[in-house]
């Protein structure tokens, strides 16, 4: 930025002799400014277009979608009638008996032949079910690797580990999606069924709700043993494609992202802080954890926030590995339908300008706002952190 102060040198050009050149310079500057505005224009255009097209579907703007349809609607549903012993009730001809019920429904059923449903709830849950676990996992690994690389590893080790990490950053997400489909899926199924791990996941209070909700019943009850034998003998509750498979794949995408930003944040901590800690007798480990990490903590937080933004926006891995069922539970070993995967799977079939098409733009807009806000927060935190580190030194 220091460079631009040089432009004042152009004042010399204002003499009559070079006025043609001066005009030329101004023209060039204006042209460059115009090109540079393209970045601003395109992001603004993306936002306006998503908003415009997304809102077109609403009744207010001439579509058929009531605003509350994006949340939930009251609708009629037929349920099977059960006998007291749990078996299905049949009529005299042996046909199943159904009864009509009014239910509050929040489903994503955009092509239903009865009433199209556009609830965002399953999609938001689907997106978060993938993004949060992957971000947490990647944050743990990414930040630890960053601390190791920046504070503790020797130069030699750095020279080996860093390029390999960059290699991972260069892997296209469709490749990781493929890998998740053929390898991680089997891995997740295998590892969750190692008895020790199964026990841990199904008996630890919060974890069991996330992994084996069928096992959250009271201890010693029949249900628990049923759940245990069932899950062990028959496979993961949600089938072999599930949110956890997708989350592991997405974590591989964002580990390098988080590690890189986190390492930058750690390196921005001035050496004076390290020297002070060392001078007081702190070891390298103490220095790293008690002095450097606290000084860089907001930068590390920013890394995680930006990583979360990336994982919310990841498409191909989620499309290929999570099973894409639009369900609303929090079970990580069950499926989930993320916003990104929904757009990727459905945009091709929806006639341009129709309600379904507009609804896809609406959810695209929601996704855009989420990631936009996360990016802004991340940027602000990073800038603050930079100023703080500079001010503190």
């Amino acid at each position: 930025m220091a460079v631009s102060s040089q432009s004042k040198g152009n004042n010399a050009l204002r003499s009559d002799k070079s006025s043609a050149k001066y005009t030329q310079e101004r023209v060039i500057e204006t042209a460059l400014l115009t090109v540079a505005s393209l970045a601003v224009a395109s992001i603004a255009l993306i936002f306006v277009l998503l908003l415009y097209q997304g809102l077109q579907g609403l009744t207010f703007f001439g579509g058929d979608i009531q605003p509350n349809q994006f949340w939930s609607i009251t609708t009629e549903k037929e349920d099977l009638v059960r006998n007291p012993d749990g078996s299905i009730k049949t009529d005299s001809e042996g046909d199943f008996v159904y009864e009509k019920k009014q239910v509050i429904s929040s489903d994503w059923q955009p092509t239903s032949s009865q009433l199209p449903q556009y609830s965002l709830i399953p999609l938001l849950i689907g997106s978060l079910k993938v993004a949060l676990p992957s971000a947490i996992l990647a944050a743990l690994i990414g930040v630890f690797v960053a601390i190791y690389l920046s504070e503790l590893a020797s130069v030699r080790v750095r020279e080996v580990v860093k390029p390999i990490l960059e290699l991972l950053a260069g892997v296209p997400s469709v490749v990781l999606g493929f890998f998740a489909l053929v390898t991680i899926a089997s891995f997740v199924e295998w590892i969750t069924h190692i008895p020790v791990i199964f026990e841990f996941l199904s008996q630890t209070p919060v974890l069991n709700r996330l992994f084996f909700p069928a096992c959250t019943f009271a201890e010693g009850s029949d249900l628990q043993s049923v759940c245990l034998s069932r899950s062990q003998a028959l496979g993961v509750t949600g089938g072999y494609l599930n949110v956890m498979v997708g989350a592991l794949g997405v974590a591989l995408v964002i580990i390098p992202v988080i590690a890189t930003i986190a390492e930058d944040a750690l390196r921005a901590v001035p050496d004076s802080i390290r020297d002070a800690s060392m001078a007081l007798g702190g070891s390298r480990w103490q220095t790293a954890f008690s002095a450097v990490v606290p000084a860089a903590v907001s930068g590390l937080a920013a890394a995680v926030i930006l990583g979360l933004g990336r994982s919310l926006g990841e498409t191909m891995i989620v499309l290929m590995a999570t099973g894409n069922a639009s369900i609303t539970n929090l079970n990580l070993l069950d499926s989930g339908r993320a916003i990104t995967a929904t757009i990727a799977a459905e945009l091709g079939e929806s006639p341009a300008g129709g309600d379904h098409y507009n609804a896809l733009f609406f959810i695209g807009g929601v996704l855009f706002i989420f990631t936009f806000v996360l990016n802004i927060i991340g940027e602000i935190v990073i800038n603050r952190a930079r100023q703080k580190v500079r001010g503190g030194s």
Partner: protein
Amino acid sequence: MLRRTSLKAVAVSLTCAMLLAPMALAGTITLKGSDTMVNMAAKWANAYSRKNPETKIQVTGGGSGTGIKSMIDGQANLAASSREMKAKEVDGAKKNGITPVEIKTAIDGLAVIVNKSNPVKKLTYQQLEAIFTGQVTNWKDVGGKDAPISLYGRESSSGTYEYFREEVLEGKNYAASTKVLQGTAALADAVTKDVNGIAYGGVGYFATRKDLDTVSVKKKGDFVDPIVNGQINDAAIASGQYPIARFLYLYSSGKPSGEVKAFVEWVLSPAGQKIAGAEYVPLNASTAKAELGKL
């Protein structure tokens, strides 16, 4: 300087490209749609172009809805569809000045598949409806083990998805817990890996697979298995004895002419039907003749 000239050259060639492009359209048939049909269509395209090298056929999947949409929007000459066009779609086409012509090309039986280890090998329409709408969630309710049912299905863009919904589910919505995969082969893959899985798909995808089982289905009358001894049960499917069967269509944007017509005629010829027969059930001679009459 040199860079500027090369930039100019690229710009000029790009402009030329824009002007010349219409000429490139001649000799290209764009066929788009059903994933059920995409492999068969690709094989048709390969075989036909080998005989007629001047005709290039562009094949894209994405689902029947996608293909019909593209045909309506004029982005494809032929839409491959595994279901009939809906009235709404026909209206949309007419609005764009297109009168679609429907051509039957093959018959597809839809099989319901389960894991090899699953003891349930027979299901009625009622049971299938209850299973796929999520009303029945445990295999023991349909005569199986005490285990949760794990549903697999197709994207809503797929004709198979719509046909199965209208034919078997009486138009009711699929259960939200249905895991949605991108292709029939992926469904087969999932069911071989998930002991509690159940899915539906074109019978041609499953005939050669030893690692999963097709279910005998009963609508009225007897249970019929679409695959017998590793062979597609052609007779039962063509006669309608096996209930979940449908025609596979090509929709042409207007009465086909020129290369498109020649291609469709070839598809209905014994050579084309032989390729169709590899995965599906070919049309019988009288149906094929009737379809040729529409051209």
